[in-house]
């Protein structure tokens, strides 16, 4: 549970929203006044989803108990969900497999 103040959270939402909108608007607004995206920037932008999402997801299953632990229910459920995600690329199947395995492990432990 957060202890950040509601005022700070409003500011964060506002800045995140404005910043995101400016990114979306960037080339649409600037067209004609700027060259295309440089090749290196394009390569970085293409890789962002893979890098950032992988960096978010891994600690949430390897450190599910707060410290490094590969024997938690969440790690096992996460690995199985990862296999389902890899094979099916389906959001619902991934959530279903991960939650299903987690509930099963919690029920039998």
């Amino acid at each position, binding site marked *: *549970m*957060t*202890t*950040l103040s*509601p005022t700070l*959270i*409003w*500011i*964060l*939402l*506002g*800045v*995140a*929203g404005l*910043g*995101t*909108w400016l*990114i*979306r*608007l*960037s*080339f*649409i607004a*600037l*067209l004609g006044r700027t060259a*295309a*995206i440089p090749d*290196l920037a*394009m*390569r970085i*932008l*293409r*890789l*962002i*989803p*893979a*890098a*950032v*999402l*992988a*960096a*978010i*997801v*891994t*600690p949430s*299953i*390897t450190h599910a108990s707060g410290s490094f632990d590969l024997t938690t229910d969440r790690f096992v*459920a*996460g690995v199985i969900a*990862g296999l389902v*995600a890899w094979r099916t*690329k389906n*959001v*619902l199947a*991934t*959530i279903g497999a991960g*939650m299903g395995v*987690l*509930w099963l492990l*919690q029920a039998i432990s």
Partner: protein
Amino acid sequence: MNQASAKSSPFPAGFFDIAPILVGVFPFGLIAGIAAVEAGLDSIQAYAASPIVFAGAAQLAMIDLIGRDAAPIVIIATVLVINARMAMYSAALAPAFRELSPLRKAYGSYVITDQSFAVSIIRFDRVDETLSDRFSYYLGASLGLWVTWQISSLAGVIIGSGVPEEWSLDFAVPLVFMALVFPAIKDRASTIAAVTAATSAVAFVSLPLNLGLLVASGLGLVAGVIWSRE
């Protein structure tokens, strides 16, 4: 896209082309709403994230970091890094948007998403139509997703406080990221980026201010870019 949608008027065609994708967006929005309530945001703020930020992965990561009391600068940087890819969509859509009024450019930009961009760019490539029809098609797809996101996250906020803790529904958040990461891994460079970022994130998990995510993402990007040069 099928023939029927190519022939029908553009706004409904955009909506119908994105409709199958919306089935997967709904649970994602539901989880975003529930996660915001579980992170300790009050109901109004938990919902307000959806119209204000209107982003999937970035919104979820932001809520997660707020729940862990991360440093404000880290929260903002994380959102902007995750959403930086939309500059790519902005550049790709810019030619189709060039003659629109500033107002249309403003709200047309606000509703850019991975999904509506993807269906629109395919349509622009295959169907020869006026810029105004292209914008209608894009809006049909984008507003379909926008409305779905608002309704599903609002539903998540409403049921959020009523979900028992034993259900461990917070685990749905990493599962959503799991479902998103694999389609993003398309070639050698993105595989190297993802593997480097994943292992670095585990190694740097105890960095202060939740900086581990940004450091690990940065290392993954560097590794991926170096690899893609060869």
